[in-house]
């Protein structure tokens, strides 16, 4: 019977179920604080404990991007080694100068990297991502962000380049994903729809993940197949078994969702028995507690742990 009152309110004491009484709620706060502290220590103070483990692959990013474009009746993009080289240079520059932005602290713009790679363009765009653990999540996050989606689904671009680079940013190991779009000068301009302006346009999104190597497009002749074979030279990628920063944050995310659901369920049971037993007591509003918790749970569920820029 005592065990039951962990979950069910007592009709004589006229209090909430024991697991919802202030002492228990303070216990949840302490637990959450401990998890946050451990999480911070793992991610920032013990970076050597963490390795790189990513499933973000250039080939998958290309396929998923082109599938998305095909679903919107757009032409698929061809991999361009020069754009991939520019993407790699951008990612390395972000790690070297410790920034997460489209423009470097020294004022370098994305098109500076593109032009330095020898790619002369009429239109260009950039999407960035960080802290993602798989390729589909990266493309999905870009697709869910209007500005990045504009790049993904722009009919102005004919070519694309990617880089997935591991390194340390702001004191934690992570993986950056750089996606560059381009329409080369000298391309079949007539094939494009009438442009709104002749001004070069930059669209910048975000992506990044952890690794100890660089994944870029192969050098050589320009790819013409929508889904080419991608070589992964100079890559050290560990999948699955290594704990990394994004894994830690992903585990934390699921812990938050589970704890939120558990508390919501406790409040539902408590509210149900209060109604059923006709208990009158002075407490907070159970229904709105549940609503606030559900708001947070849904918010967490629909938000990627990774970031896009």
């Amino acid at each position, binding site marked *: 019977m005592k065990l039951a009152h962990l979950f069910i309110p007592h009709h004589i004491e006229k209090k909430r179920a024991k697991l919802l009484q202030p002492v228990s709620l303070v216990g949840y706060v302490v637990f959450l604080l401990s998890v946050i502290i451990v999480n*911070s220590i793992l991610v920032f103070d013990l970076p050597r404990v963490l390795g790189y483990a990513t499933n973000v692959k250039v080939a998958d990013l290309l396929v998923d991007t082109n599938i998305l474009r095909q679903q919107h009746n757009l032409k698929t993009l061809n991999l361009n080694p020069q754009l991939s080289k520019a993407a790699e240079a951008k990612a390395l520059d972000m790690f070297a100068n410790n920034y997460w932005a489209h423009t470097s602290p020294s004022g370098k713009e994305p098109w500076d990297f593109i032009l330095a790679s020898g790619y002369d363009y009429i239109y260009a765009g950039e999407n960035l991502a960080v802290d993602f653990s798989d390729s589909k999540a990266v493309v999905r996050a870009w697709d869910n962000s209007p500005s990045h989606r504009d790049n993904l689904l722009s009919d102005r671009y004919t070519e694309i380049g990617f880089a997935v680079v591991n390194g340390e940013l702001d004191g934690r190991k992570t993986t950056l994903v750089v996606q560059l779009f381009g329409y080369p000068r000298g391309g079949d301009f007539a094939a494009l729809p009438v442009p709104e302006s002749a001004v070069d346009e930059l669209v910048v999104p975000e992506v990044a993940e952890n690794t100890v190597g660089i994944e870029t497009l192969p050098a050589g002749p320009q790819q013409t197949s929508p889904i080419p074979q991608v070589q992964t030279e100079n890559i050290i990628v560990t999948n699955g078994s290594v704990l990394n920063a994004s894994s830690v944050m992903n585990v934390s995310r699921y812990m938050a969702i589970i704890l939120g659901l558990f508390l919501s369920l406790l409040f539902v049971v408590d509210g149900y028995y209060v109604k059923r037993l006709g208990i009158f007591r002075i407490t907070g509003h159970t229904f709105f507690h549940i609503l606030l918790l559900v*708001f947070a749970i849904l918010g967490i569920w629909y938000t990627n742990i990774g970031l896009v820029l």
Partner: protein
Amino acid sequence: MKIDRKIVPIIQYFVLLFGMSIAAIFFQKTPGNMDRFFIIFVLSLMYVAWGCWHHGHLDRLDRLVVLEYSIVAIIVIMLSALGLGIIRFF
């Protein structure tokens, strides 16, 4: 114009639901994790204020009720900090 005291709690419920709806719209329109966390943070603080207002009107405001609203808000803020990966911004 005097509002019937019995009507006030219903108005308070609508105020809270309206606030949550606005927060949900802002949340959906805001892509950044930090911005989304901030929306939940503000909503949680407003929830505590709403709880005090609501229970005060009903003459049922005591320390335990304020404590309960405060702890629920803190839990929601901490869950969001954990679930949205906010620690990386510190």
